[in-house]
């Protein structure tokens, strides 16, 4: 019996993905291809949304592939939902809310929510009708999430939440937001993180779009939370396990961000290679015959493939329940993919010459999105800090 035959589900082994995973990619590719970058940028530039595509993904079961079957999902793993995210981006439709709603929120609730919470929130996350945003970043607590000040206090059976969040994606498209806040530990008086599901129409909950340069229908928001009253069961899972729960969402977050980035890079490289085969400037040889054009594209192709490989490793470890092992790989994947995406987009623009800067060719439109992949959801510097300290055992630098 070979390694692959032993596999159950769509897990990953022996450096090739299972047939089912590849078929999932193919199906998503086809669906996303009917929308494509033209749709995505048209919606972005006209102030429209990608709701049609989102619901189409939900209807076909691609959005919630990682959500357990009994809650309306596909019963697959992070590797599956990451494949969906990557293929979307590779067709010119990079969807940030894939990272947030099914992968972060879906994973946290599926793993730690009460039975009632799972039944209430997971089906809508899986079919896309009740998207959930995720809010951890604060104006004074970005990379250092230990500094968050959004607090929750008990008032009888209820919670009262106050604070401010920033750069929160897709609040306008979400029904709820999974908000990271702190509660006071009754015994020690120390603040500990807790996760709350806050409806976006709750009184006292307001949000304002931040003007971003990224060409995307998905917007970022500043969120103002002023004495928002929540029922007792708005707290996900256990009050004392907030940190563990939060960490459970971080590996999926990084794996998804990496897949978003490699998908974006593949899209740019596909366009660039097609252009390099067609465009002739000197003589009758296409520009792709010049190594100055060919080599950077080949190099990027290698970088993207390497990033994909470590992303798949992270997914496999994550799906096998090895959170610690997955942590290192997921951080490396996020780092490698962010760098690969930036370089691929830069080179794709260069390959296109002046056309690289036009709206028609859609390459410059990828610039900010690819650049953001070195910043969010965790910056390259913070990953290097992590690897230096945890993988190499160097002194803590932050």
């Amino acid at each position: 019996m070979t390694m692959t035959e032993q596999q159950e589900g769509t897990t990953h082994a022996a450096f090739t993905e299972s047939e089912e995973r590849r078929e999932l990619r193919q199906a998503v590719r086809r669906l996303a291809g009917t929308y494509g970058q033209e749709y995505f940028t048209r919606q972005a530039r006209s102030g429209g949304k990608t709701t049609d595509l989102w619901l189409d993904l939900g209807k076909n079961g691609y959005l919630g592939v990682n959500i357990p079957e009994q809650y309306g999902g596909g019963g697959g793993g992070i590797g599956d939902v990451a494949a969906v995210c990557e293929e979307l981006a590779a067709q010119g439709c990079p969807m940030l809310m894939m990272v947030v709603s099914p992968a972060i929120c879906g994973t946290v609730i599926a793993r730690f929510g009460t039975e009632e919470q799972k039944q209430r929130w997971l089906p809508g996350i899986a079919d896309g009708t009740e998207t959930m945003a995720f809010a951890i970043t604060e104006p004074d607590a970005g990379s250092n999430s230990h500094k968050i000040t959004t607090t929750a206090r008990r008032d009888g059976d209820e919670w009262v939440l106050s604070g401010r969040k920033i750069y929160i994606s897709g609040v306008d498209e979400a029904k709820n937001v999974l908000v990271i806040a702190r509660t006071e530990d009754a015994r020690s008086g120390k603040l500990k993180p807790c996760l709350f599901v806050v409806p976006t129409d709750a009184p006292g909950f307001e949000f304002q779009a931040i003007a971003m340069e990224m060409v995307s229908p998905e917007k970022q928001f500043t969120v103002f939370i002023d004495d928002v009253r929540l029922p007792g069961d708005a707290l996900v899972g256990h009050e004392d396990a907030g940190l563990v729960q939060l960490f459970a969402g971080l590996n999926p977050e990084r794996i998804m961000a990496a897949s978003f980035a490699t998908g974006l890079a593949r899209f740019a490289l596909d366009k660039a290679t097609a252009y390099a085969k067609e465009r002739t400037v000197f003589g009758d040889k296409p520009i792709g015959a010049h190594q100055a054009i060919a080599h950077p594209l080949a190099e990027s192709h290698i970088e993207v493939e390497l990033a994909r490989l470590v992303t798949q490793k992270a997914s496999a470890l994550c799906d096998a329940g090895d959170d610690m092992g997955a942590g290192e790989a997921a951080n490396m994947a996020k780092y490698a993919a962010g760098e690969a995406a930036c370089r691929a987009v830069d080179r794709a623009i260069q390959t296109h010459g002046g056309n690289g800067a036009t709206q028609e060719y859609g390459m410059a439109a990828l610039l900010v999105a690819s650049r953001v992949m070195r910043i969010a959801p965790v910056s390259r510097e913070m990953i290097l800090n992590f690897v230096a300290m945890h993988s190499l055992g160097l002194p803590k630098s932050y």
Partner: protein
Amino acid sequence: MNIVVCVKHVPDATADRKFESDNTVDREGVDGLLSELDEYAVEQALQLREKRSDEEISVTALTVGPAKAADAVRKALQMGADKGVHVSDDAIAGSDYLGTSLVLAKAIEKIGSEQKVDLVVFGMASTDASGGVVPAMVAERLGLPQVTLASVIESQGDQVRIKRDGDTATEVIGATLPIVLSVTDQSGEARYPSFKGIMAAKKKPVESYSLSDLGVEASEVGAEAAYSAVEEATARPPRTAGEIVTDEDGSGATALAEFLASKKFI
């Protein structure tokens, strides 16, 4: 009710097409997929099963082709078909429409020997050979009425009514099961295989038949028995640059109209 959908594995039309040394289509060396026109057939079979959900309806996807053709069956299973049958035999290679229809008809008879087949569904044509005659030939061989090129299909009990859109009129045709049906690309978009469908397909039964299982002699099919032979295959000439009409003095519209008229577009 027992429905058989015939599905063909064809070379990916977006990839380069290759031919074997005997000028038959290279089916092993290229990427293939379930013929898009057959997806409509699978879709209609599945819709029929869903519309008549109070009945016991089984949908079997049937393909004839080399080892790789199993992909076409699997795609149909991912979309929702219940089981698959794959007829594969080296002797089938190079069969013409008559040979192919013989193998299909025998396979349908074999499927029917376990449970009577009420409905055989085809796409309107394959995307590689584009003959569109196989449904009629299979109907003839099975001795069943053929109801072809349907754009709308309704059924109740053993009655089926279809709409067939022609150039000048739309016909409404009624038939009593069992029949052979072919559906057009106007019959409704085919569904994408869902993630659950992809996972479930793995566990669905697929039977493999050889020619001897079907009681077909090797001499009846294949390139040798074919009535036609491909003498030569020439690659399509590369795309030419096209003609650009420049408009500097206001004569552009006339030039454009003349060009279109010369090509008989207007």
